[in-house]
């Protein structure tokens, strides 16, 4: 069909089609079944949303009549805010459930909690939970769409999408992910950000080099396709086009995974000097919140190589695109 405009004008005329190579997904739980074309189209939609967010009036009526429920069993002001902004910027109604876990700890099952919330009839839930798999469980129990906003160590797909989207936007002379190298440094073991970025970047054709102490970088990661495992920064960063440091939780020291903070800083803290190993145009990334001078030197985070602020800025357009992509065309 070559005439999109006619179709809009004619309820009786030609149904408009999605591009044939993309899939209409019900949920965004992880990126496993999202094809490269699906991701590419999502990025294109995010481009449109980014333009909307640059206007004086940062609001479009696209999701009028839809209700988005944010269901954060684990606190995250930043991500929750980002999703709520993404929903409201498209005129969706937002229901915010403060699901701090109090009722669950009293023995209510997850399913019962959802049943209560489902009575509010949201069209889409944005879910964060400290246990891996909860968004998958909820997706089995509700007719609404489910977006994983971070489940345990499992996945944080919108973070990975905005990381790759930022790279695509800002890497000088970007010509695709093939042949590109992403280095991820730090606590890979506990990181859903790392898992989702590994899934996405390798899918898009990039190589992912992981770096960290063995206690935080399990050897099973060697078996993932397109992934290499390093204990030293130099080989991990060599030729990397993007270098991402992961947040180091202070409790890792208490549980014996690290001997001391000083040792971690000495071996794995990213500084401007380390960028000498990387590609001359390498971007410096961090999923936030940043522990300044722990996983990354403050100077590097503030340098012109850092796109940390741009990652944050990309969060809303990417999440707008996710909401749009999952909700429109669902009926």
């Amino acid at each position: 069909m070559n005439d999109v405009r006619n179709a809009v004008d004619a309820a009786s005329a030609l149904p408009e089609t999605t591009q044939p190579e993309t899939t209409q997904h019900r949920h965004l739980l992880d990126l496993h079944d999202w094809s490269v074309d699906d991701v590419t189209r999502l990025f294109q939609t995010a481009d449109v949303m980014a333009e909307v967010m640059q206007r004086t009036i940062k609001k479009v009526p696209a999701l009028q009549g839809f209700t988005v429920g944010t269901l954060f069993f684990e606190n995250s002001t930043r991500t929750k805010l980002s999703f709520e902004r993404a929903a409201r910027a498209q005129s969706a109604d937002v229901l915010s459930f403060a699901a701090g876990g109090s009722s669950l700890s009293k023995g209510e099952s997850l399913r019962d909690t959802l049943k209560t919330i489902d009575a509010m009839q949201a069209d889409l839930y944005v879910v964060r939970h400290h246990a891996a798999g909860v968004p998958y469980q909820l997706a089995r129990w509700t007719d609404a769409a489910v977006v994983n906003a971070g489940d345990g160590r499992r996945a944080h797909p919108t973070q990975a999408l905005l990381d790759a989207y930022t790279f695509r936007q800002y890497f000088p002379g970007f010509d695709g992910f093939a042949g590109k190298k992403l280095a991820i440094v730090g606590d890979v073991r506990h990181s859903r950000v790392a898992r989702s970025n590994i899934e996405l970047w390798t899918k898009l054709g990039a190589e992912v080099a992981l770096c960290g102490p063995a206690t935080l970088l399990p050897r099973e990661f060697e078996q993932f396709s397109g992934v290499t495992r390093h204990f030293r920064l130099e080989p991990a960063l060599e030729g990397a086009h993007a270098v991402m440091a992961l947040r180091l939780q202070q409790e890792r020291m208490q549980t014996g995974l690290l001997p001391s903070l000083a040792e971690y800083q000495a071996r794995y803290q990213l500084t401007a000097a380390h960028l000498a190993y990387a590609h001359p145009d390498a971007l410096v990334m961090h999923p936030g919140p940043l522990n300044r001078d722990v996983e990354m030197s403050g100077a590097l985070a503030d340098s012109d190589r850092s796109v940390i602020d741009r990652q944050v800025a990309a969060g809303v357009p990417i999440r707008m695109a996710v909401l749009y992509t999952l909700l429109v065309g669902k009926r």
Partner: protein
Amino acid sequence: MSRIVIRNARLYDPEYDLKYDVGEGSSPPHPNDPTNNTATNTADLYLNDGIIEGVNLGGDVDESFDAGGNLVTPAFVDLHAHLREPGQEVKENLASGLAAAAAGGYGTVVSMANTTPVITEPEQIAELIAKAERLGQARLRPAAALSHGLKGERLTDFAALQDAGAVMITDDGIPVRDAHLMRRACEYAAELGLVIQTHSEEPSLRQDGVMNEGTVSQRIGLPGNPVAAEAVMIYRDCEIAHLTGARVHIAHVSSARGWAVVERFKEQGAPVSGEVTPHHLTLTDEAMAAFDPVYKVAPPLRSAADVAFLRDALARGVVDSIGTDHAPHTRAEKDRDMLDAPFGIGNIEVAFPLLYSELVTTDVVTLAELLRRLQRGPTDVMDWSRPNLDPGSPADVVVLDLGTSRPVRPETFKSKATFSPWAQQTLRGWPVATFVRGRKVYEREGSS
């Protein structure tokens, strides 16, 4: 008392290794069978006053059951089931659990002691036995806890518990952390001739693991429990068995490396034996990627290589017993998240059809070997008399339909846990009827 005949029975007495068509070749005549029973030739088995009376005797009976040419063999023995009474009746109780056992073809069940309160007193044992007798379902032979409150600090009164009817000492559900306490328990049990069953997982290695540690756990981001946690604890427990001479039964061995330890000690003549479960023989850790807590079990489902190794061990005849580790929970408990949901699978009603379908019809093991691990295997572990069809033996028999395929329908379970990892899976080998103490305690709906 009543006299019952099971007509048209294809009798299989494991103690005579009658090899009708259970996978081991020719069929010598049954010594008790005047008509020279063969695979194509069925017989009538008479049960009288709770014991087996004999074959093809004739005479008046109070009840007649037509086995329809199905296999009739001694009912199974499960050394490992969580019946949840007292205190956790919302999950299971003696009535539902023993009925479920009978529906699974089991005539005898050893119940675990991790109830609320924990089974630590002789009176509790006596009460459980009395109640089970009144129920008249599968026989109950309760285990008692090794330590008070399963805390691993202070031994229970083994002798008094034994006198009250406890047949096994175990803290199953919780590993005995303190090696010294395990040593003392074994010394004491050895003197009394009691079997100690272990839950061998080293807690400091297991940590907060909810599934097998490996590629799958790292991929899906659930905390892992390494094989090493099981293997080192099995090693410790086997060494203590060797040291003390106690009969130690290693429960639910889940991994190749864990089983290799058991087998090595067995070869050296240590007084140890090993159990595997239906789920560890049929499911892998890949199942956890569906994020359904129904697959969450301790020890965890392992890799495909581990499953293959355990199957091979079973085929080689070195596995002592198959115990179900039937561990029912409520649906609501299993509808929690993967970290919070409790460990355990309810499986006693599907154990035989599952193993028959997945292992026997696929030629992994013979039917005779599978039956050995459900009949003679467990009784040898306990030093009980072997199940058989001799006149004078307990009239505990099961009628098994090896031909008909049926889907697993959890909603029809006698157990309170009416959900299953195998729901809707089509299986063969369903029990048609189970007789315990000479009385029919289970009959499949629509079978007569």
